[in-house]
C-alpha cells in the first residue's frame, strides 16, 4: 500500500529537516508510487532506472519542495521532467513489446489522474502522441512505426521531435 498525500507531505517536510528515518520511508513509498506512475509509459526494463533517476533528482532538488504546497504534484513535475528527458535519449529496446500486466492498485484518484503521464500525452496532437508511443515507449524502429501507423518516415521523425518539445513545455500542466 502506498502512503497518501498528507503522509508523504509530512515525511518530506521532516526529511528537509534532516530526519533520516522519515526520509527512508519517504523514498521507499515514493519509489513504489513512481513505479506505478511510469508503468506502461516506458519499456518495462527501463522503469527501475527511471525511478532511480527520479529519486536521485528528488534527493538533489529536495530544497525546491515548498512544504506549504502538496507533495505529489511536485514529485509528478520532477518525474515528468525525468521521463521526457529519458524519452529524448535515443534508445532501442530489445524486447519491443510492453507486457500487458495489471499493476497493483492501478486505479488512480482524482489527483493522480490530473498529474499522470497519460494526461500529458493526451495534450499532444494524435499523430505526435502515436509516434512517441510507438518509437519511444514501445521501442519500435522508425520503419516499424511507419508501417504500423501509416505515417511517412519523415513525418514520424518530425512528430517525435515536435511532440517531445511540446511535452517538455507541458510538464507542469494538468
Amino acid at each position, binding site marked *: 500500500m502506498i502512503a497518501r498525500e498528507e503522509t508523504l507531505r509530512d515525511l518530506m517536510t521532516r*526529511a*528537509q*529537516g*534532516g530526519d*533520516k528515518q522519515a*526520509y*527512508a520511508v519517504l*523514498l*521507499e513509498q515514493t*519509489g*513504489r508510487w513512481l*513505479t506505478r506512475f511510469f508503468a506502461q509509459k516506458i519499456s518495462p526494463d527501463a522503469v*527501475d532506472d527511471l*525511478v*532511480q533517476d527520479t*529519486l*536521485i*533528482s528528488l*534527493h*538533489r*532538488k*529536495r*530544497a*525546491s*519542495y*515548498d*512544504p506549504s*504546497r*502538496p507533495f505529489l*504534484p*511536485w514529485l*509528478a*513535475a*520532477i518525474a*515528468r*521532467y525525468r521521463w521526457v528527458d529519458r524519452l529524448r535519449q535515443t534508445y532501442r529496446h530489445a524486447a519491443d513489446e510492453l507486457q500487458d500486466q495489471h499493476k497493483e492498485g492501478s486505479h488512480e484518484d482524482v489527483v493522480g489522474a*490530473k*498529474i499522470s503521464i497519460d494526461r500529458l500525452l493526451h495534450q499532444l496532437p494524435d499523430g505526435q502522441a502515436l509516434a512517441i508511443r510507438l518509437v519511444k515507449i514501445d521501442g519500435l524502429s522508425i520503419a516499424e512505426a511507419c508501417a504500423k501507423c501509416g505515417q511517412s518516415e519523415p513525418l514520424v521523425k518530425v512528430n517525435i521531435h515536435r511532440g517531445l518539445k511540446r511535452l*517538455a*513545455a507541458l*510538464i*507542469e*500542466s*494538468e
Partner: protein
Amino acid sequence: MTNKFDIAALVDDLEPVTALNPRRPLMIAAAILAAMIALIVGIQGIRADVMAGHPDEMFLIRAGILLVLGGATAHAVTSMASPSVGKNNNGWQIALAAAVVFPLSALIVATTGDFGPAMSAMQSGMRCMMYSAIGGLATAVPMVLALRRGAPTSPARAGWLTGIAAGGLGAFAYNLHCPFNNVVYIGLWYTLAVGGCAVIGRLVVPRLIRW
C-alpha cells in the same frame, strides 16, 4: 524494488536543507534594481519632469508597464524554481501582452511616416539598450541562482522569462533618466532592449540551470 542500495545511499547522504523561499530572490532583485536606479540617476541624471514632480503621462505609462512586466516575469521565474503540476503562474503573459502595445503602436505610427526622434536619437537609444542590459544582468543574478538551486522543468522558458524580467527591470531603471516620450522611440528602443535581454536569457540561462 531493485533500488534498495540507492535508497540507503541517499538516506546516508541526507543533510537538512532550507526550503526555497521564492520571495528572497525577488527581494534581492528589488534591492539590486534600487541600486541600479541610484547608479543611473547618479551618472545620467533624472528626467526633468519627474524632478519637478509633474511627470509626463507617457512616462508614467511606460514606467508602469516596464515595472509590471519585470515584476510579473521575475515572480514567474522564481516560482519556476519550485515545480508543481497544475500550478498556474500566467500573470507574466498578461503583462507581456500589455507591453506589446508599445511596439504595435510604434509600428502603426511609423507607417504614417512620423518617426519622431526614434532614428535621430540613436545614440540615446543605444545607451538605453546598454543600461538596460547592465541593469538586467545585475537583476538576473538572484533569479538564476534561485533557478540553479531549484528544479525548473522548462529551462528554455525559464531562460526567456529571466531575460524578459531582467530586461524589463533594467529598462525601468534607465527609463527614469530617458527624456523621450515619443511612442515610436519607446516602441523601437525599449523593445530592442527587452527583446535583446530575452534572447540573451534564452541562449545563456538554460545552460546554467539544467539538472
